[in-house]
């Protein structure tokens, strides 16, 4: 596909000659995000201001050309992939932190600001931005808001939507709107809440006002080994049942621990069936007391080789292992397919045993690294793309794993989004009426369907997914 005649010139008049990419070789850079499927856009526009975003969308609206807002391209569900061609609207040049208000504890940022950079800058005033996706060194706040991203510390602090106070957005007709702001209980419908997590299908985000939190004066981080995933899952439930919600509660399986230890030498116990990383924060009194209680509970639930970080450097090393786990898996196979599903926490052992079986069936190694406290699993299917036959197997295994998640009462995605990757599976969890209600929102905000088409909603032109379940459970008809 190519843009209609003259459109590239229109776009160049808006953003400048150098800021429109349409040479075929240059476009290939924008073919993918962090997921499997790619598609080359017809043009990439590098916007620097809200006005430019607005003008570009007006041109797209006039010609009915798809527009896909794009941040760092680290997304894992194909949200930034231009599957129907059109314009990739790159906002990473909009990367100013416009304001940090230490009294109100808020920040106003442009969408291209990198997640970790915001916390580093806010840290100079004793504040931080809580949602911390593992890609936080690269991913942008705009992308986080579009996807409603999570992260390890969302167990206690909540996900992106709990921290976005308001946004400036450009709608499908190119109009610019503020939704919500820094006042609670605003008058009318909560459009901001609906737009966060809408994956670029309802608006492009041009400014975000977020809540910042005080950096806790004391942090304690503990690593504990368990003989099995079941034992570690049981320990997670026991901690929470005791009345403690830690800041983070992360699990890694044996495969992951082996790869991480070989890479980072963080002192992870490689003989363990599973490892838990537990963090609490607060003041010294509370972290000391809570960590003592947690240590007891873990010990009573088969935890061993427990090691608390004694210095910030040790803590960073423990977290480096967790946040860098996916990269370390490259030691096992060169490629991975990182899945995302979420189940009621008590179903973790069941779903992980199903995941293991599915991996064996397809003869694919699977590494699990995930947010155990939330029931949010991330099976990594490891493979070598040089084996041309393997991709089909990988996709089949992934679908079966998701099916198991749904059969156990779970949802398709905890934090990566539906995007392209999972749109075909939406009817697994939502009825036609459910999807129709969501589509009414889409039709109100983007009647012509120019914003990120082909995402979230099942595409009737793509193959329907029909898959026999493996867990032996029927999909629970009563979603309630």
């Amino acid at each position: 596909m190519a843009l209609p005649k003259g459109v590239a010139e229109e776009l160049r008049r808006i953003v400048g000659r150098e800021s429109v990419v349409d040479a075929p070789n240059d476009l290939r850079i924008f073919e993918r995000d962090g997921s499997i499927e790619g598609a080359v856009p017809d043009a990439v526009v590098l916007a620097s201001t809200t006005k430019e975003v607005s003008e570009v969308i007006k041109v797209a609206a006039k010609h009915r050309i798809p527009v896909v807002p794009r941040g760092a391209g680290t997304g894992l569900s194909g949200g930034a992939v231009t599957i129907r061609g059109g314009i990739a609207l790159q906002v990473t040049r909009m990367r100013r932190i416009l304001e940090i208000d230490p009294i109100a504890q808020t920040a106003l940022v442009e969408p291209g600001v990198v997640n970790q950079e915001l916390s580093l800058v806010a840290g100079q005033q004793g504040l931080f931005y809580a949602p911390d996706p593992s890609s936080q060194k690269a991913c942008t706040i705009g992308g986080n808001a579009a996807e409603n991203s999570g992260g390890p510390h969302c167990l206690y602090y909540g996900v992106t939507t709990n921290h976005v106070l308001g946004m400036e957005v450009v709608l499908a007709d190119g109009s610019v709107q503020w939704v919500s702001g820094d006042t609670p209980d605003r008058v009318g419908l909560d459009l901001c809440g609906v737009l966060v997590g809408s994956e670029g299908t309802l608006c492009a985000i041009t400014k975000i006002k977020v809540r910042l939190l005080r950096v806790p004066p004391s942090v304690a981080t503990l690593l504990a080994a368990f003989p099995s995933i079941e034992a570690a899952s049981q320990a997670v439930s026991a901690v929470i049942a005791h009345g403690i919600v830690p800041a983070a509660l992360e699990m890694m399986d044996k495969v992951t621990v082996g790869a991480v230890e070989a890479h980072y030498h963080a002192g992870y116990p490689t003989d363990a069936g599973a490892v838990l990383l537990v963090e609490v924060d607060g003041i010294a009194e509370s972290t000391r007391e809570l960590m003592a209680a947690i240590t007891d509970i873990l010990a009573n639930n088969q935890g061993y080789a427990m090691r608390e970080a004694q210095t910030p450097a040790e803590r960073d090393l423990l977290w480096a292992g967790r946040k860098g786990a996916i990269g370390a898996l490259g030691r096992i196979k060169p490629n991975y397919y990182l899945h995302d599903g979420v189940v009621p926490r008590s179903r973790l052992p069941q779903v992980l045993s199903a995941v293991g079986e599915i991996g064996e069936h397809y003869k694919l190694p699977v590494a699990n690294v995930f947010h155990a406290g939330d029931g949010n699993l991330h099976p990594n299917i490891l493979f070598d793309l040089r084996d041309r036959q393997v991709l089909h197997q990988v996709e089949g295994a992934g679908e079966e794993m998701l099916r198991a998640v749904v059969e156990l009462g779970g949802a398709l995605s905890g934090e990566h989004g539906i995007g392209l990757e999972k749109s075909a599976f939406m009817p697994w969890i939502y009825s036609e009426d459910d999807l129709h209600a969501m589509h009414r929102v889409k039709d109100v905000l983007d009647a012509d369907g120019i914003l990120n088409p082909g995402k979230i909603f099942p595409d009737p032109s793509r193959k329907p997914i029909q898959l026999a379940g493996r867990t032996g459970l029927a999909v629970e008809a009563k979603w309630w």
Partner: protein
Amino acid sequence: MVVSNRLGKAPTVEKPASAEELARRLHDAASSRLAVVPVGGGRASGMGDVLQRCDVLLHTTRLDRVIEHVASDMVVSVEAGITLEALQGQLAKAGQFLPLDPFNSPGHTIGGLLATGWTGPLRLRYGSPRDFLIGVRVALPDGSLATGGGRVVKNVSGYDMMKLHYGALGSLGVIVAASFKVFPKPLHDVTVSSRGGWADAERALSTPIAPSALELLSDGRVLARYSGSPDAVNRVVKELGWEQAEEGVWVEHAGRSAERWARIAVPKGRLRDAVADLQEWWASPGAGIAHWSIDLDATSVRATRAKVESLGGSLIMLAAPDDFMRETGAWGAPPSTLEIQRRLKNAFDPDHVLNPGRFVV
């Protein structure tokens, strides 16, 4: 609330026993263009502009089941007509609770609380149901039942329909069921009080661990609630040096309301300015919210609202006699996105049968 329609005829009372029946009743009424007013516990029935019409009162009170409470998942699903107290009783058996303590209690239903967006002091620590509502099921005027979210604590599968219906005052549909992330009872929970007014409120808000609730009353009383690790709570409470509050102080506080009252919400640094000229109020300074027991005429209410709006906030009427409400209006300045909101209203309720005239759209 208006209890008769324009022709002076008393509205029909419907008390469906299931979500499906409720959806049918709603559809039947909508097909005949009858105006439908959803009713829960009636605790917030004064909220909003005076109804233009009311033909059917659609009660949710028979939908009062706990559908599922899996304590180890810390998730509960309920029908909308259950009262907050009944739900808390069920959760308490597992040492859990829903951190929601609205004013004008007891007797709120869950559906009513979600529709109105009413909250209480615990919002400071836990946020509002906007933050812990994880699934919602809504009956729409076309008779369909539409679900959003699910029963897991973290979920980005599709649009966040919970946000669409939370606080929408039943203008898009009638909430028939909801799922929540619930919380463990804190290990330790202490409330202390002082009479030190704003200065003490600010002091308590800046303690090394933040209070889970901090309420300031117009007579200068301050209630500070700390919860969490016993050692930490005890240290902070000792440093504050205030007296222990009486047992039952929060139940008493949650019972507050007035015949004429309003909710003021501003960026939190501006709350003191917003209530400076008012007589009787109670406030959550850490959240930027105050409730005002109105002792002035409608003109003065409008002047107060103008001031609050100039501070970047809103003043919403929670109850008043009809004539008074007509003079003040319930909502104040419309949001800049009003046009989009109207289109959403039309997409879900094209014949405007739900709560006609009552909400912003």
